[in-house]
C-alpha cells in the first residue's frame, strides 16, 4: 500500500470519469508514470477521446459500460443491487455520491475513489481495525470481484490494441490482480 498505488488509482479514477481529451491526456500520463509504462509520443488525443466515448459513454450503445450493475444485474440494467451496495459502502465510509441517483453509484470512478479512501484508512490506522479490513476485503472480493474482470474483458475486446485505453485497462487489471493477491495473503477465506 504505497504512494505509487494510490497515484495509480487516482489516475485510473480520473481516466474513467474524463470528459475531454485534455482530461484523458492528463490522467493517462499519471497512470503511465505510476506503472512505469510509456505513452507513444504523437498520440492523437482526440482519437483517444472518440474511442473512450465509443466504449464507455455513448451516444451509441456502449460495449463496456463502466458500471457494476451492467455486469452483476439482470440484463445489463443499471441502478441494480450492485449500485445500492456501493452506495451503502460509501455511507459507511461517511461519504456519498452527490445527488444520489443521478449518476449510478457503481460507476467505476466512484468505486476507485472509495478504494483510495479505504486504502488510505488502512494505512493510517496504527493497528488496522478489523472492520476496515473486512470492508476492504469485501469490497475487493465480493463487489469488485463480481464485475471488474468482466468490465476489463469487455474493454479489451473492443479497445484498439496498444492504445491509451488499453494501457489504462492493463493498469486497472494489474492493480486488481495485485489487490486480490494481497487480500488472499492476509485474509484467507
Amino acid at each position, binding site marked *: 500500500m504505497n504512494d505509487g498505488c494510490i497515484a495509480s488509482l487516482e489516475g485510473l479514477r480520473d481516466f474513467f470519469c474524463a470528459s475531454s481529451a485534455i482530461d484523458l491526456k492528463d490522467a493517462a500520463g499519471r497512470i503511465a508514470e505510476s506503472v512505469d509504462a510509456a505513452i507513444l509520443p504523437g498520440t492523437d488525443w482526440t482519437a483517444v477521446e472518440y474511442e473512450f466515448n465509443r466504449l464507455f459513454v455513448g451516444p451509441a450503445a456502449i460495449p463496456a459500460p463502466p458500471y457494476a450493475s451492467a455486469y*452483476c*444485474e*439482470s*440484463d*445489463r*440494467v443499471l441502478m*441494480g443491487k450492485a449500485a445500492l451496495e456501493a452506495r451503502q459502502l460509501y455511507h459507511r465510509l461517511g461519504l456519498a455520491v452527490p445527488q444520489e441517483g443521478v449518476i449510478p453509484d457503481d460507476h467505476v470512478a466512484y468505486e476507485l475513489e472509495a478504494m483510495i479512501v479505504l486504502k488510505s484508512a488502512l494505512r493510517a490506522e496504527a493497528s488496522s481495525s478489523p472492520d476496515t479490513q473486512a470492508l476492504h476485503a469485501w469490497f475487493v472480493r465480493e463487489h469488485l470481484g463480481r464485475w471488474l474482470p468482466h468490465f476489463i474483458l469487455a474493454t479489451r475486446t473492443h479497445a484498439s490494441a496498444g492504445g491509451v485505453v488499453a494501457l489504462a485497462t492493463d493498469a486497472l487489471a494489474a492493480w486488481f490482480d495485485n489487490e486480490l493477491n494481497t487480500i488472499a495473503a492476509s485474509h484467507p477465506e
Partner: protein
Amino acid sequence: MKKHYAFLVDSERCIGCFTCAMACRNYYHQEKGVVWRHVYPLSEEIYPHRERAFFSLACNHCENPTCLNVCPVEAYTKREDGVVVHHQEKCIGCGNCIRSCPYGAPVYNPVEKRAEKCSFCHERLDAGLLPACVQSCPTDALKLVDLATLEPENHVQFPPGFPKNAKVNPSTRFILPKVPTMVRR
C-alpha cells in the same frame, strides 16, 4: 375451503399482445435470455391462421411437480394453495428440474448459475394482489382462478398444442380460440 390457485388461459380472448410476458419482466427484471412467461403462437394445424392464436404459459404449478420431486436440496415447496415456489437462495444450479419439467418452466440463469421460474407472484397473492401478469392483461384473457370453486364450463386441461402429462397434473386451464367467418376477395 382450501384454495387451489391456477392460471386460466383464455385463448379466445387472448390477442397475443405479450403484455403479460413483459409485465413479468417489468416486475422481476430477469436476466437476458431468461424468460418466465412465454406467449407461444399456436401452430397452423391447431389454429389455421399463422400467429393469430396463442397460449400464454409460465409455470403450471402442478399437483405432482417434477421439479420438486427431482430437487436434491429441497429448493421447491408446494404451498397449500397449490403454488409451487422456487426458493432461489437454496438452489445449487444442478439442472435436474430444468431437464425434467415437461413444460420447460424452470430455466437456467447463467449469471446467478441457478434455476428460476414463475412462482405465481406468491408475495403479491399474500398481499391480496393479483400476479403481475394477470393484472396486466388488457382483455382478461389471463386469469387467476381457484380450481376448488371454478365452475365447469368450457375450459380444458390438455388442449391441442399443450403437452399432455397427466402424471404431473398441471393446474393451468385453457379456453380454446374460435375462428371468424372469412370473406376473402
